[in-house]
């Protein structure tokens, strides 16, 4: 028995958004009487952190602290339209829509503040802590809670804004096939180090080194976690998850639910290093690109290449089971 070691890498280019019949997302934002800003969306945060990121986008645009932002994604029947959470589009599409809505609301906010302070709105700025103040004369300031009260009860205004982001449908040029199906592309590379046991065929992923170029990382901690959590899914696809050997011929012996479906637990996680490279996209919210789905992709071919490097077996079907490794080793011996 020998433990064989190998290293492989793989790269991925991944589109943000997709070419539907046009790909819109819309957002509405309005201030409450207390000076909180409610963002209404239909977009779904299914755990990926969309609510956090769009709250950041709104806070940055309004010049208000994150604590002032309330994200309401309750209901697709009543909320502004969104195509959905897919194609790694959420941060890009919804972020852009929220920024647009927040810009409009900010203009109203500054105008209401200007009327209260008896100055020109063009001379006002936000300080990021909740105040609108006169440029160069910061003592002349008014808090957003007072602005909101004045808007509602004195000036009869709504501090609100509409955001409409639309990626228009792209038709291919008939002669060349040239088209613009997505908004931008993120790029990544994963290097995998594996150990292959040539007696049992067991593959262990020892280390993953991830490098991701994702435009501006709006929330670096969440971006890193998406990279490493996604890589875990990649490892899971690569060497664990399967309904084999009996599916679909028979459901009697294979896994029929998630309690029997093999996925790596906390003890089977490779050590990971992750690097985020930021080359802002021209059309993303503050330069962001989508990184939702791509994070599970590169680890799989990287692991396949590392197995090849370790023992010479070229596997093309997932998962890379002990049986497939051993059959590959047998084939190499037979051929030798």
């Amino acid at each position, binding site marked *: 028995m020998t433990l064989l070691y190998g290293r492989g890498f793989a790269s991925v280019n991944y589109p943000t958004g997709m070419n539907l019949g046009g790909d819109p997302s819309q957002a509405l934002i309005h201030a409450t009487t207390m000076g909180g800003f409610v963002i209404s969306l239909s977009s779904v945060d299914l*755990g*990926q952190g969309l609510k956090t990121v769009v709250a950041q986008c709104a806070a940055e645009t309004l010049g208000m602290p994150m604590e002032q932002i309330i994200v309401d994604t309750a209901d697709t029947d009543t909320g502004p339209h969104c195509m959905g959470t897919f194609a790694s589009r959420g941060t890009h599409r919804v972020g852009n829509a929220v920024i647009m809505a927040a810009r409009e609301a900010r203009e109203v906010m500054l105008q209401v503040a200007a009327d209260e302070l008896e100055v020109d709105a063009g001379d006002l700025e936000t300080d990021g802590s909740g105040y609108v103040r006169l440029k160069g004369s910061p003592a002349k300031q008014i808090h957003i809670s007072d602005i909101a009260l004045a808007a509602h009860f004195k000036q009869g205004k709504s501090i609100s804004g509409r955001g409409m982001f639309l990626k228009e449908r792209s038709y291919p040029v008939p002669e060349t096939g040239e088209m613009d199906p997505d908004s931008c592309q993120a790029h990544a590379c994963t290097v995998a180090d594996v150990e292959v046991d040539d007696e049992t065929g067991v593959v262990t992923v020892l280390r993953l080194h991830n490098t991701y170029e994702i435009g501006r990382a709006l929330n670096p901690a969440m971006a890193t*976690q998406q990279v*490493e959590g996604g890589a875990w899914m990649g490892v899971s696809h690569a060497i664990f998850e399967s309904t084999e050997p009996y599916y679909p011929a028979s459901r009697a012996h294979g896994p029929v*639910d998630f309690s029997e479906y093999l996925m790596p*637990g*906390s*003890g089977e*996680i490779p050590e*990971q290093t992750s690097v985020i490279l930021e080359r802002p996209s021209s059309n993303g919210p503050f330069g962001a690109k989508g990184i939702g789905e791509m994070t599970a992709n590169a680890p799989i071919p990287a692991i396949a290449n590392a197995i090849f490097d370790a023992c010479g077996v070229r596997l093309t079907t997932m998962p890379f089971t002990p049986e497939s490794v051993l059959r590959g080793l047998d084939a190499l011996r037979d051929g030798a």
Partner: protein
Amino acid sequence: MPVRIVNLKVNGVDQAFMAKPETTLLLALREQLGLTGAKRGCAQGACGSCTVLLDGAPVVSCLVPAATVDGSAVATVEGLADGQELSDVQQAFIDGFATQCGFCTPGMIMSAEALLARNPDPTADEVNEAISGNVCRCTGYAPIVSAILDAARRRRDRAGQEATR
């Protein structure tokens, strides 16, 4: 077995409620006592998101018929914080960014609390074993393991400070 009254001490408070024979501890906590921290994931004991402490031991509350644990003490994630002050494990999860969607987090935290109660200085392998019944689909586990080790350190440091005081 008929409907019966079940008495539990939940997070230190005496509670009594009616339970049908098929009422699980998880259902009773969530629907009757309003404690929705423990989550219903798989409802078959495989995912650990419903983990609570039953007389100090971690259990998957989706598999525990409430009527069978009459008179027991139950600890849920809601009982960990002391007012506004989070427990060491909760604070370490936040500081170490050990949560993403958050669905597994209450169960993870209760498994960690059970581990640290019996082993104040666990190794990473021991942490892995303690949370081996808890599934996380977001984080890749590494930040969770780090956070639990960090919480153990905080708790030992605190115990050390109190001992020298």
